[in-house]
């Protein structure tokens, strides 16, 4: 392990070694290692799902690790709550801070530990003065007396940082802090970060933007699939090397898409724009084709899918199914046009969890089941059973509530609901998130089979191997724009990652 050791003999501020964490059967971290030294800005990079967030949450006291070592300044640490972590000198700055909007900047900084004057009265003057001193130390100008409401995200982050410093945090973790910042704001944040580094604090910086990592950080640790990959000094590391470390593996044959005859266009999206969400998105999905929509979390993939299906609106552009325009903001129209949509959030959007399997699978088709407008449970059960059968939904009874089932079975119920409508286009957002390996393979086989029967499939996935293995074509979304349209042959992990992080050398 080629860890960078600074000159000083001081122990590292943060040491995580071989940390493991599982949620039920899902392994989030296998063996994660991260060593951050005082006076250093340490980048933590990896694909979606590499385990960065879980690792940070262990340090922040949100989760408890299952195994491995966790030391702060050489002392063993184990936090059961975020309060314990804060007290130990750890501060986490999130992408979107959560301040109390109606309280003043000062009140937000000193929340829960107000400076008290004579007679246990809250000494506002002293608090304002202290807040002003903190901002001066950071070299920024924010009025401590103004309410937090209406502050930019950049200013809110500065307030979180000021809070951290007033707590004398030794370790600052910034989780994608620049995602919502403009260029000038990023510069200011970096200036603050460098100042804190020079004061001898340790900073862990998570970002998907390589230019920022190279600009700000001195060391980088790469994670992949919940495991430590490597730690390198930034000087002497190239972007290509870093991407290589992040992606690492060859795409295996875990996700076989059998070749299908690709036919006429089914879905044609052109110039779709929703201000601040996605911009000028155009693409086509043909029958028999699986199109993968790749990109980082928050890039706008799900939002595009939601707009196409009509759950959300859009300002300009058009959605056409088999050449006919689909009216916006009307899921009913999308369904009539032959669309099916398996959404990202199974428990809230995909299913009515407090309703039975029958009620869920019959959810879309029940209107057409009714005879003379009348619908009985028996009619629904009869219509639903073949679909439950075909997808091998494991339940003792169709009367079971969906919430009692496993994630994999729930996903099968959602897919059954949509297949029952005999769609021509299936939009499927995170088809295998949170489901067991066996069911995962079943879902992949099913998607491949459906494409073989001529269905057009638009698949959103944060799992790169899934996208690369299943898709005939990969569209990459970065910050609301399509940055690449890669045919299967040229859809390499490197090409997708480059397009997703807008480092355009490789993207064609």
């Amino acid at each position, binding site marked *: 392990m080629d860890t960078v050791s600074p000159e000083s003999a001081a122990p590292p501020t943060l040491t995580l070694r071989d940390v493991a964490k599982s949620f039920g059967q899902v392994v989030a971290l296998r063996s994660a290692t991260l060593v951050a030294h005082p006076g250093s800005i340490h980048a933590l990079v990896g694909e979606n799902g590499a385990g960065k967030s879980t690792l940070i949450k262990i340090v922040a006291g949100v989760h408890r690790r299952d195994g491995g070592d966790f030391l702060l300044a050489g002392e063993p640490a184990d936090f059961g709550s975020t309060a314990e972590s804060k007290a130990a000198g750890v501060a986490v700055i999130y992408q979107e801070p959560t301040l109390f909007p109606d309280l003043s900047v000062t009140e937000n900084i000193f929340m829960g530990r107000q400076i008290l004057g004579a007679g246990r009265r809250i000494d506002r003057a002293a608090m304002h003065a202290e807040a002003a001193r903190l901002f001066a130390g950071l070299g920024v100008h924010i009025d401590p007396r103004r309410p937090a409401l209406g502050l930019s995200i950049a200013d809110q982050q500065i307030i979180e940082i000021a809070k951290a410093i007033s707590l004398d945090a030794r370790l600052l973790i910034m989780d994608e802090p620049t995602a919502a910042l403009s260029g000038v704001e990023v510069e200011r944040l970096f200036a603050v970060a460098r100042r804190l580094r020079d004061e001898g604090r340790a900073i862990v910086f998570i970002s998907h933007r390589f230019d920022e990592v190279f600009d700000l950080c001195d060391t980088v640790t790469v994670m992949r699939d919940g495991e430590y990959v490597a730690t390198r000094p930034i000087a002497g590391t190239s972007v290509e090397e870093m991407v290589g470390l992040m992606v690492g593996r060859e795409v295996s044959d875990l996700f076989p898409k059998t070749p299908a005859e690709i036919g006429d266009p089914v879905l044609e999206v052109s110039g779709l724009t929703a201000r601040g969400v996605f911009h000028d998105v155009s693409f086509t999905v043909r029958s028999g084709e699986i199109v993968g929509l790749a990109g980082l979390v928050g890039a706008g993939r799900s939002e595009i899918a939601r707009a196409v299906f009509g759950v959300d609106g859009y300002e300009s552009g058009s959605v056409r199914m088999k050449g006919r325009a689909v009216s916006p903001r009307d899921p009913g129209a999308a*369904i009539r046009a032959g669309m099916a949509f398996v959404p990202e959030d199974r428990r809230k959007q995909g299913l*009515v969890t407090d309703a039975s399997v029958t*009620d869920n699978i019959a959810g879309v088709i029940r*209107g057409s089941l009714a005879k003379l*407008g*009348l*619908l009985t449970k028996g009619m629904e059960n009869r219509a639903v059973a073949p679909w439950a059968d075909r997808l091998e939904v494991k339940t003792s*009874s169709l009367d079971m509530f969906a919430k009692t089932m496993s994630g994999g079975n729930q996903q099968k119920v959602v897919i059954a609901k949509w297949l029952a409508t005999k769609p021509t286009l299936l939009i499927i957002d995170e088809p295998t998130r949170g489901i067991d390996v066996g069911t995962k393979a079943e879902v992949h086989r099913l998607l491949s089979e459906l494409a073989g029967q001529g269905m057009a499939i638009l698949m959103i996935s944060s799992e790169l191997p899934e996208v690369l293995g299943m898709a005939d074509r990969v569209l990459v979304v970065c910050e609301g724009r399509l940055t690449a349209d890669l045919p299967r042959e040229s859809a390499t992990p490197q090409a997708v990652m480059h397009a997703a992080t807008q480092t355009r050398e490789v993207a064609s």
Partner: protein
Amino acid sequence: MTRTYAAYAHPLWRRLLLSREAAVVALVIGVSMWAYGNVPYFGEQLTLNYLLLDVTPILLIALPMTLVIVTGEIDLSVASVVGLSSVLVGVLHEGGFSIPVAAAVALVVGAVCGALNGYLVAHVGLPSLAVTIGTLALYRGLAVGILGTKAVTDFPADWTQRASETIGDTGIPTVMLLFLVLAVGFALLLHFSAFGRGVYDIGLGSEAALFTGVKVQRTKFILFVLTGAVSALAGIFYTLRFGSARGDNAAGLELQVIAAVLLGGVSIFGGRGKLVGVIAGVLLIGVISSALRLQGITVNVINIIIGLLLVVSVVSTPVLAWVSDVAARRNRGTRPTKTPAGVGTP
């Protein structure tokens, strides 16, 4: 390969017997039988006649209200719509219009009142509790504003008699036939139509309903319009039965309607409940008040008893769920980890 799914976890008779609705129906029958044997005059036709006439407005409004509450919304303006339609019937009658014409206008205005509620809730997206507290005051204000404190009482006798006449000498008011038709209609709508399935889906998870193509906004709008129209119908009946059109008619009736709906097993959080239970809930309240009144018990005491009954019924649902949970776990040999902290939540 075909596998068969048992359609239901328990046979039909068992589900029916163990349901909340069965309990309320059993209570109605039990209390009626007890009153029949023990309360003087309870068994007489006149008692039945008055009992049913008294609960008719509640029965009528409870039908659409059930659907509204199943979607997770509420309509507190119903009694004000009753008052407004009563005033309209009175004023139009005074102005020389026939009762059918006056009633038709009142029905349309009721539907419009409901449409305003529905528009604000479904399309603007405001909370129905706040909207209908506002329109409760608005519609009542209109009613009192139009007629002032006076009353219109000179309705034609044939119409006032029609409102309280009975079917033969059974003591059952003819107006119950109208209720029966509406009850069957609403039951088919809620329990035997795709629209009704959507009503439940909205109550159980409106986001998932939206993703399934249920027309959430349109469904809610329609239900509020129906509630307004049926409330106006109740107002017309109320006016003719008492032969009196007043701005303050039926004040406070909305709480009785909602109490009966909840007593009948409908969840205030939406998604659960059946019309059978609601109808039994209204009748239960009617039977208890009638029997107690015949015993010479004052209205205040009756209200206390009905209030207690409602509280017990609302609390009983989560408690019973917890008890059966404990029993189920014990059967599996594990100890319950949950306490009934969820009392008051679905």
